[in-house]
């Protein structure tokens, strides 16, 4: 395992929680009246410069992935050799449930294609033209060590020049997103402690 402590850096990070979107700890957008995850996603898309009509065809998890990665990578320096290491606890729960409901009547191919959590990796890769390694892990809770280890190994072994790693959890109308861009240059050392600390960042 590559354990180059503090060798890499977190050059930017994003939080999406409780109808609020933060980049690098600063509030970027706050939705006032939204109660459901889908209305929050729709409003956020309209308010932020994302401009990607395919967004509307995606399921909640992929929309959340596109929204968070778009904000994370906005104005950042990254190449198509940027890996993705994402995780969550509920996999593609909302879509699995929707699919289960549609099988009673007639199956929808457009719903079925999103019944896997790693589809979000593909959607992000397509939007940003990424051609690097990616992985999606299902964990009970945010696992800083896993993200640290896997991300470090990818960069150590030249499998990726930089990595977007983090947590994209969507279940019913609850969501919790924390993504960070890990590169060879930056202000915050990439470490398990810093990942934990940044993940736990409390929004006002």
């Amino acid at each position, binding site marked *: 395992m590559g354990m180059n402590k503090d060798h890499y850096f977190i050059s930017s990070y994003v939080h999406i929680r409780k109808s609020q979107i933060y980049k690098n700890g600063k509030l970027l957008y706050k939705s006032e009246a939204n109660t459901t995850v889908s209305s929050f996603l729709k409003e956020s898309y309209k308010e932020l410069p994302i401009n990607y009509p395919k967004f*509307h*065809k995606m399921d909640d998890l992929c929309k959340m992935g596109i929204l968070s990665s778009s904000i994370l990578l906005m104005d950042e320096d990254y190449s198509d050799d940027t890996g993705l290491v994402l995780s969550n606890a509920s996999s593609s729960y909302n879509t699995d449930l929707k699919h289960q409901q549609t099988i009673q009547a007639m199956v929808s*191919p457009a719903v079925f294609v999103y019944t896997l959590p790693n589809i979000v990796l593909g959607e992000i890769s397509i939007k940003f033209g990424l051609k690097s390694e990616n992985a999606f892990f299902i964990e009970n809770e945010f696992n800083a060590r896993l993200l640290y280890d896997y991300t470090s190994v990818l960069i150590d072994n030249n499998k990726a020049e930089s990595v977007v790693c983090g947590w994209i959890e969507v279940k019913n109308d609850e969501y919790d997103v924390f993504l960070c861009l890990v590169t060879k240059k930056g202000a915050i050392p990439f470490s398990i402690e810093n990942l934990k600390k940044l993940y736990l960042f409390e929004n006002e």
Partner: protein
Amino acid sequence: MNDLRTELKKSIIEQLNLEELSVEEIDNDESLFGDGLGLDSIDALELIVLLEKDYGIKLTDPDQGKEIFVSINKMATYIETHRTK
């Protein structure tokens, strides 16, 4: 006759989540795939489901889709002659 075309446009926008398009913006002869509306292969499957669900038309040969899903006009003509509901 035009009602069917408008109805089709409405269902396509709704079923395929083409949120940024309106009925008025889809031309009856505009191609649905490629340069036109830019639909993809999953959308094609969704259109097959739509034909069955809304008009009782069951396509047995997927290749038929290529001839039917050309434009709104082509789809409407096919539905008019083959619909069972």
